[in-house]
């Protein structure tokens, strides 16, 4: 056995890999002759023992029981609700208005591309289950992992509602509030409307949402009309803020528009 051969296998040796009797004999003979390799093997074995000690001393979760209880509550609630994927599989736009949703989705996709090039989007918010504060709450929920319609905490702990059937249509226009617009704003919305996520048509057929981020993006106000929102004619040159739920594959799944009220509440 040469030093080079030993080096290739030294980690396996130190981790107790099985060796044939012949290989063991060659190893022993080499280590007797080569102090450097003997020291190398000794160091790796020390490291293996130390890492074993690290593994053995790893603390257990003190919240396992609480987490289990919360998960079981979520498990029990599971059949009664629907997932984002289930929403996406339903036709959410009436046929005459389908082009509007598709056009808006294209705009949003374009916005994503623009942002990736210009870093225009702001700090992302991971979609995840409640963290430590969840111990006080029996419900566990997240837009990424739980069915739609279930409250999920945003960064400030306020619920993010992911509606099952909140779909804009030309017959029932939504409102959005323009920001960064010197002129008159679009029709103000109530918080309930503003904080609703709406599934994007482009989410249809995408893989199930495993996890995601909520990313703030500016959308041209003029494009909101194409999405079924009511926009004042003199506000069409402005921008409106929106949160886009981006899945694990980077594809946008849902959007909610942000009002000044909800934004200020988040900062509190």
């Amino acid at each position, binding site marked *: 056995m040469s030093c080079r051969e030993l080096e290739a296998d030294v*980690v*396996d040796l130190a*981790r107790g890999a099985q060796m044939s009797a012949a290989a063991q004999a060659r190893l022993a003979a080499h280590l007797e002759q080569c*102090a*450097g390799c*003997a*020291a*190398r093997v*000794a*160091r*790796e074995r*020390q*490291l*293996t*023992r*130390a*890492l*074993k*000690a*690290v*593994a053995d*001393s*790893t*603390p*257990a*979760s*003190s*919240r*396992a*029981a609480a*987490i*289990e209880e*919360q*998960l*079981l509550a*979520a*498990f*029990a609630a*599971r*059949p009664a609700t629907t*997932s984002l994927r289930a929403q996406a599989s339903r036709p959410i736009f009436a046929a005459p208005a389908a082009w509007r949703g598709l056009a808006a989705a294209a705009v949003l996709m374009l916005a994503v591309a623009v942002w990736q090039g210009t870093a225009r989007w702001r700090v*992302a918010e*991971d979609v*995840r*289950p*409640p*963290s*430590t504060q*969840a111990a006080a709450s029996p419900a*566990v929920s*997240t837009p990424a*992992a*739980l069915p739609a319609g279930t409250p999920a905490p945003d960064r400030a702990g306020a619920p993010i509602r992911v509606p099952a059937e909140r779909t804009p249509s030309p017959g029932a226009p939504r409102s959005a509030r323009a920001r960064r617009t010197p002129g008159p704003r679009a029709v103000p919305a109530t918080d309930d409307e503003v904080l609703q996520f709406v599934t994007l048509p482009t989410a249809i057929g995408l893989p*199930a949402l*495993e*996890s995601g*981020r909520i990313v703030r993006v500016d959308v041209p106000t003029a494009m909101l009309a194409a999405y079924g929102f009511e926009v004042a004619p003199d506000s069409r040159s402005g921008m409106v803020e929106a949160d886009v739920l981006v899945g*694990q594959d980077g594809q946008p799944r849902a959007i909610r528009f942000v009002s000044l009220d909800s934004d200020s509440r988040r900062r509190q």
Partner: protein
Amino acid sequence: MNTSYREDMAAAPLTDRVPDDELLTRVAAGDAPAFTELFRRRQPDVFRFAVHMTGSIATAEDVVQEVFLIVMRDGARYESGRATVASWLCGIARNCVRQRLDRDRRLTSVDVANDDCEPGSEAGGPMDPLAGLLRAERIDTLRRAVQTLPVTYREALVLCDLQELSYRDAAEVLGCPVGTVRSRLHRAREMLTARLWASSRSPVPCVMTKGAIP
């Protein structure tokens, strides 16, 4: 609290003979006791992986929660012939951890220790930082040093040396060939040793993270 949880586990109906993949099938069918059993059986593995990767117990608990939420939703997507359930769960945990690490990257103190420090040739000598690694404070030093490794290498080391997965199972979790796992592990251990040496020579500890394991 750990003790009471374990007592609760002992009092629960025993389903130890049911294989993990069968439990997962039942979970997909809406069987709550199967979910409970799977959680109790595999939660420690997921938690340990996450805590070694993140250095934070609170974050690791979040990851556990996230992983099992995904299990309850996507349990049917598990392919039994491809990987063990434990590996599959570690793979999910890995994705969750990576997302969190990506998000928190700006806040993480990155070790700037010189990875090219030579470990020297006198194993067990008076200056050898490995010599006393079995002492408690040295174990903490080593734990922190693990968390300063680049994620790619940390994953290999945590899975193989701390979780004691086989190369094959680790390769399934990481989605790479077995040879890649071996080479990453080899490199991870080299880097770890170098950082410990750098730390032992520096008046300021080279291994610093924001992780907090008491």
